[in-house]
């Protein structure tokens, strides 16, 4: 049976990917961000998951408003990197997991989550921006992914509660998969930011920290909030935090927070969090001691 080891929440700002490609790891303006990813990358290296389930959103690259799904699950054997107007990032394509994805689609639709299924659509920075900092990928990625796209662009969006429940259904789907696979669930986006209109540049650190507190201990409270609450508290585009709620829904009721990093530099509060499931199994390899220092 497949097992969920834990969950990761990560911002997906495109400049994170650009800074990575330009090797700005030691640049004083970027170092606090890159250092923040090291413990989570080390945890993934030690846990060696076979599959990452990634809640992300497309930014009008592979999906356009003429045909717009609310939830869409990627089932391809492979996912290319999208050209977002300035050429593709120098990353290899990542493997999908068609058997697990098809099992998940069957479970989710049978549970009345009537999602769209897609093949052969490139993934954009909503997916690759955080992935490139979390998983080594030269010459190739160490595992496979099942991407789940969420409409956070065109209202009506799925409600926060629906995203939370989707996460719970995803957990049941993963745990009913017959093969012995190790799985980590990732939610991307956020935290506070607004990048359209005169209110562009809005941030709210107090709310961001409260959001993280609630996500860990009272996700049901976040699920009961409305989109307008997220817009008011965290800025219009921070409504995408509903994808973190989907990730949280896939975890156990109680989780152990192993790491958190918060860095607000320009317009987006770039945040990373790692939760381990309450009943997480022991790491595959014995040597995992080096990571224990990352607990904050």
């Amino acid at each position, binding site marked *: 049976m497949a097992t969920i080891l834990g969950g990761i929440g990560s911002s997906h700002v495109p*400049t994170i990917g650009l*800074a990575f490609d330009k090797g700005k790891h030691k*640049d*004083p*303006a*970027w170092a606090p*961000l890159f250092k923040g990813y090291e413990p989570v990358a080390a945890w993934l290296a030690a846990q060696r998951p076979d599959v990452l389930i990634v809640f992300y959103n497309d*930014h*009008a*690259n592979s999906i*356009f*408003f*003429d045909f717009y799904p609310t939830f869409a699950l990627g089932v391809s054997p492979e996912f290319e990197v*999208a*050209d*977002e*107007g*300035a050429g593709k990032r120098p990353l290899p394509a990542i493997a999908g997991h068609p058997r697990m994805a098809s099992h998940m689609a069957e479970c989710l639709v049978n549970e009345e989550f009537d999602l769209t299924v897609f093949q052969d659509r490139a993934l954009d920075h909503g997916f690759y921006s955080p992935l490139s900092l979390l998983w080594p990928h030269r010459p190739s990625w160490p595992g496979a992914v099942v991407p789940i796209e969420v409409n956070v*662009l*065109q*209202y*009506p*969006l799925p*409600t926060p509660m629906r995203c939370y429940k989707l996460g719970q259904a995803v957990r049941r789907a993963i745990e009913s998969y017959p093969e012995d696979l190790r799985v980590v669930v990732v939610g991307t986006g956020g935290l506070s930011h*607004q*990048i*359209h*209109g*005169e*209110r*562009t*540049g809005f941030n709210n650190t107090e709310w961001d920290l409260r959001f993280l507190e609630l996500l860990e201990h009272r996700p049901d409270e976040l699920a009961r909030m*409305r*989109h*307008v609450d997220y*817009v*008011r508290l965290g800025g*219009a*585009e921070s409504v995408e935090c509903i994808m973190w709620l989907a990730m949280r829904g896939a975890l156990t009721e109680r989780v152990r927070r192993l790491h958190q990093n918060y860095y*607000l*530099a*320009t*317009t987006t509060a770039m945040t990373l969090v790692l939760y381990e499931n309450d009943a997480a199994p022991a790491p595959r390899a014995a040597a995992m001691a080096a990571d224990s220092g990352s607990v904050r």
Partner: protein
Amino acid sequence: MNAQLEGIQDIDGTYAFDILQSIKALRINRFFWNMRRPHFRELFAKDPEALMDREGLNEEEKTLVRARDWIGMIRYGVNFFVLEKFIRVVRLSNMDVYAAMRGETLEEFLRTRKVPDAR
């Protein structure tokens, strides 16, 4: 009214992109969306007027494009994420456009940021 958005009209400087906006602005949004393709970018560089005609933009939309009227486009119903591709084509950074939408110069906007060098 979408119950999830009740009260959004009281949040200044914010324009929820919903289905009616999406219908109204479909052509100009598709126009910018197409700019993720190199060939479309070449056509725009060569003759923007001809391309806007071919793609069926109306006069109001053409005026917004010609003037690079960023806040005007947002108010009209352009989605920021398609606009981002046009920002690349005219060789500006997102920061330039963020500043413009706030009615500020880039320098003024950067002064409001915690770490302006993280670009």
